[in-house]
């Protein structure tokens, strides 16, 4: 087996140019958007590098600690990550690796007799499959990373703070005020109050579909925390039917001031801070 592997390696080396051309032709035909994303010259350089390392791995195919093997993996991983970022489909990324077979097999067919050919194809197959699997795993991993990042980013932007006026900030609340988001809202509110030296915080709840006792509790907590920092809290976006429902529920918003519209809330905030709209 070892001897054959060496022979294959020599052969690949000898026909490197031809394999290189075949492979690139395949890529342009079968993975066009990938080539476009990477760039034609870069693709050429990448295939050339991979081929060079591949030829070095071949004689020692099972040695995964092999320096060249690690280098191929590295190139493929980088390519794969790039593909994820550019939204290239996983199948095109797979084609990149697997089309290498179509460029190597013709050379083997020309040079080997039938008996050797079967073994040689098997050896090349094994190695390329392994590379393919590795590439695919990186693809999935980076995909997961990206999704995680996006979720993280979404969480961060989901509680924005708007400085609407001197000493007045506004936080539009959206969706379900679950514990996690409330926690975030509180942190952001208190931090914003501190940093901006604001005296009034308007919490707008127009974007909260259901105001139940849990939401009410969170709002009350936020308001008293703001008060502890010497600021006033105004809750806006309390539509009539929500106010009525809260009363029926028996919720007492206590000291928290509420207003139906943002405009009314802002008006009150200006009065509380001795300011006027010009």
């Amino acid at each position, binding site marked *: 087996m070892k001897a054959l592997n060496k022979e294959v390696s020599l052969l690949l080396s000898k026909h490197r140019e031809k394999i290189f051309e075949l492979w690139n032709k395949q890529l342009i035909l079968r993975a066009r958007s990938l080539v476009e994303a990477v760039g034609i010259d870069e693709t050429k350089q990448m295939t050339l590098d991979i081929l060079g390392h591949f030829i070095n791995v071949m004689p020692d195919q099972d040695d995964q600690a092999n320096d060249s093997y690690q280098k191929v993996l590295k190139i493929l991983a980088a390519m794969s990550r790039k593909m994820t970022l550019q939204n290239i489909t996983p199948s095109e990324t797979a084609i990149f690796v697997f089309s290498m077979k179509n460029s190597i097999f013709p050379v083997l067919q020309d040079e080997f007799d039938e008996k050797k050919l079967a073994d040689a194809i098997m050896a090349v197959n094994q190695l390329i499959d392994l590379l393919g699997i590795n590439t695919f795993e990186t693809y999935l991993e980076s995909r997961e990373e990206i999704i995680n990042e996006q979720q993280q980013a979404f969480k961060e932007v989901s509680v924005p703070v708007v400085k609407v006026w001197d000493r007045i900030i506004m936080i539009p609340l959206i969706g*379900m005020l*679950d514990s996690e988001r409330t926690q975030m809202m509180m942190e952001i509110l208190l931090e914003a109050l501190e940093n901006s030296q604001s005296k009034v915080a308007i919490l707008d709840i127009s974007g909260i*579909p*259901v*105001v*139940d*006792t*849990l939401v*009410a*509790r969170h709002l009350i907590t936020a308001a008293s925390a703001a008060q502890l920092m010497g600021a006033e809290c105004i809750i806006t976006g309390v539509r009539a*039917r*929500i106010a*009525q*429902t809260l009363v*029926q*529920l*028996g*919720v007492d918003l206590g000291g928290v001031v509420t207003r139906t519209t943002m405009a009314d809330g802002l008006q009150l905030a200006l009065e509380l801070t001795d300011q006027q709209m010009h």
Partner: protein
Amino acid sequence: MPNSRQNSESFEIMISNFEDIILARQKVKFLMGEMCFSLLAQTRIVTAVSELARNMVTHAGQGKMTLFQVDGKRKTRGLKCIFEDKGPGIQNIDEAMQEGFSTANSLGLGLGGAKKLCNEFKIESVPGKGTSISIIEWL
């Protein structure tokens, strides 16, 4: 509860987390919209549903909500929501219904509030076995 009979199909939603509560509320809101309930009625009932569904999650771990249309007397129609769980049950229902009573250190307004928010409210609970609450809102 007055004679009410189930008509047409019913919907079952298993509820074990906060996402499920959102789904349950959306489903109820959608059905009520289709049945032409007023926006105020929708707000009241969806809020009650939110309370009862959350109680199943926080006090019983999980449960099931069943929804269906019912026909009442004098050609009225209504929406019935049943909340069933196999949680610890409630020792003293009167006490649990009281404003401010909570074993979870929260507002303690959900149960009594839900009753005030809908037309009909029936609660059954067996300690150690579970709780079943049904509410009806008539058009």
